[in-house]
């Protein structure tokens, strides 16, 4: 058993490595370059080139992939020849600002900027402000006699300045384009990487992706667990009822209902439920009423329709599987024997049918997890529910690459992890399974 779990974990790890490569490849290497997506159609080629360089998009793909996954501070640190550190300061209630600094030998945290060919250092003060000092004896000389300096700039990047050859840097500000002279010649954007809990900055909100995502994950988990808790008992009961009455009217009705709810696209189910409950009966609120990320638990009645929508699809699916499994078991030799040896119908159902008939639905529910999670993404978007799926969808619509990547990875880890847990539970329930 332990060996089985370890082996599953190893395959899962390998799968996740390939998945991360696929996600990265689809999002970043696909045609339509990232800088273009951020800047929109009206940027000049110079602005686009400058932006690509600042975002580190001109670096080799393999290095970008590793930086995305494991961070880039350890790559930049040897160039700068100083250890690097990150500070997080709260601005307002939620918005955090992250700053990268080089730690000078005397313990000062420093960032640099070149002005008129001279380096100025910004030394971080205990109160969080910075003190600007002239720091012009940092230059080193390379083989061709050029003076250069690797340091941390004010935009969370390791940067290489070349004395006398300041480039032009374009930055997109709230007010528009800002042009800066004396810019570095090379950049390494600093981040800790996905595996170390830092998924980059959201290009849309300009806040760390990781901060936004946590709340969203919780909301999605709430929705998913409520839907599962609600749908499984109902579906199993209905499936049992239909299966025990094979061919009768009850069976026909339940099966037909299951087919319709399981087959309909989630968004269509959601829309129809909104029409019935919100527009016609005026019992429940309809779409897009979650005013904030935290509203989920404050107004539980807002949850009713999303949970119902996510459940209906699942109920239809599980009940059909349960029904066919019950039918199969009812026709088996051991059930016939049990009836013939004089057990009451109830005893046969409870003792023989139920347990054996439950194996198939459990297996299929497990295989169905990805489908269920996909359905959640759609349900969230129908109701404007502030969950992970909706987050990824908005990121995808706005081409917010780091958000897409992080959201996708988290969602897949959740999916694969749930699958693993389900596998283990299944092997505990079903003693007939072999670990090979």
């Amino acid at each position, binding site marked *: 058993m332990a060996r089985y779990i370890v082996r599953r974990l190893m395959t899962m790890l390998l799968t996740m490595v390939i998945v991360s490569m696929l996600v990265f490849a689809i999002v970043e290497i696909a045609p339509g370059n990232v800088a273009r997506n951020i800047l929109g159609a009206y940027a000049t080629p110079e602005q686009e080139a400058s932006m690509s360089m600042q975002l580190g998009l001109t670096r080799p793909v393999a290095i970008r992939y590793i930086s995305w996954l494991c961070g880039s501070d350890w790559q930049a640190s040897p160039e700068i020849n100083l250890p690097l550190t990150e500070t997080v300061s709260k601005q307002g209630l939620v918005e955090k600002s992250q700053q990268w600094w080089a730690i000078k030998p005397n313990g000062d945290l420093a960032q640099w900027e070149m002005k008129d060919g001279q380096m100025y250092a910004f030394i971080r003060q205990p109160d969080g402000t910075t003190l600007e000092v002239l720091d012009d004896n940092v230059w080193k000389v390379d083989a061709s006699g050029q003076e250069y300096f690797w340091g941390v700039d004010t935009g969370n990047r390791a940067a290489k300045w070349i004395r006398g050859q300041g480039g032009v840097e374009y930055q997109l500000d709230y007010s528009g384009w800002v042009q800066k002279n004396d810019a570095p010649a090379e950049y390494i954007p600093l981040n800790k990487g996905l595996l170390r809990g830092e998924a980059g900055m959201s290009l849309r909100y300009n806040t760390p992706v990781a901060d936004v995502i946590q709340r969203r994950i919780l909301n999605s988990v709430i929705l998913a667990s409520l839907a599962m808790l609600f749908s499984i008992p109902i579906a199993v009961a209905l499936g049992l009822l239909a299966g025990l009455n094979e061919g009768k009217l009850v069976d026909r009705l339940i099966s037909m209902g299951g087919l319709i709810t399981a087959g*309909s696209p989630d968004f269509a189910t959601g829309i*129809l439920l909104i029409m019935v409950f919100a527009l016609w009966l005026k019992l429940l609120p309809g779409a897009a009423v979650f005013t904030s990320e935290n509203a989920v638990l404050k107004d539980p009645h807002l949850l009713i329709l999303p949970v119902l929508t996510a459940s209906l699809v699942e109920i239809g699916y599980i009940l059909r599987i349960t029904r066919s499994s019950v039918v199969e078991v009812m026709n088996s030799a051991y059930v016939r024997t049990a009836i013939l040896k004089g057990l009451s119908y109830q005893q046969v159902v409870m003792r023989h049918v139920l347990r054996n008939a439950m194996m198939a639905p459990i297996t299929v529910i497990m295989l169905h997890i*990805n489908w269920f999670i996909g359905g959640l993404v759609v349900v969230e978007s129908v109701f404007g529910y502030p969950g992970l799926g909706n987050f990824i969808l908005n990121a995808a619509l706005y081409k917010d690459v780091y958000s897409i990547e992080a959201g*996708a990875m988290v969602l*897949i880890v959740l*999916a694969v992890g749930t699958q693993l847990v389900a596998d283990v539970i299944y092997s505990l329930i079903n003693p007939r399974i072999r670990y090979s």
Partner: protein
Amino acid sequence: MSTAQSTTNQVPSSLARSLSGLWSGLKELAELIWSSPTAVIGLTIVLAWVFVAIFAPVISAHTPLEQDYKNVNKGPSPTHILGTDQLGRDVWARVAFGARTILSLGPISVFVAFLVGLALGLPAGYYRGWVDEVVMRVLDSLMAFPTILLYMIIISALGASPINVVIAIAIGGAPGIARLVRALTMDIRTREYVAAAKLRGDNDLIIMLREILPNCRGPLIVDFLLRIGYAAFYIGTLGFLGLGLPPPTPDWGGMVQEGHSRMTANIWPVLSATLAIVTLVIGLNLFADGVREESMRYQ
């Protein structure tokens, strides 16, 4: 002389044989469908939509793009039998032309997915070894994605267009098809007729395409039918998520997306498009399910 004669005799006879083979195959399929009430109901629904799609210009008085500025967001009326949308476009015309969109993109994307799936699954199952190992690892990883997530990131990267929808659905569907083909191939390659073909000196490609592929066709046809239902499901969903076809194109999912925030003012575009997609997807599912159950009974 004698060789010329034998070739002229051979060509029509082999043509006739393959035609009669096709004919008997179709007859078999028709009988199979006919013996399952579920499949018949499903097929009827689907054919009704196919009819609507083919005759869309005839059965709708308006084009899907023409705007009636005097009648915006109106309910049903004699001129617009299902009303108009927020731009004054005829809802029935958009539904009818939208049927064309979904009924053409669905089968095309499944077909492309099958080509990819066959190209990966046949060699994986036939050669086994490291080819199999590598192909299956990558495919397993693709299958770890919740399907809709995969579609979302592919379309976000490539942009929303009919071709990209086809590409996304093909990439999403290919792993499942490849696994099925691989499993069937692994079974069939141990058969005597494959050994005979090897002995005859046929090369691997010929064996895969002429011996193995035709003998997989039963399960593959059923899978194809099922997947057309999924494809319609996902094309509708992508449209709803705003990742389907770009706006002016009549597309059911897109109609729901455009209209659902205005549902209190005008329910008709949303209701029509929602019911259209639900009936089509259920029709396709009933049809595929019926065929599958019936063909399993045969075995």
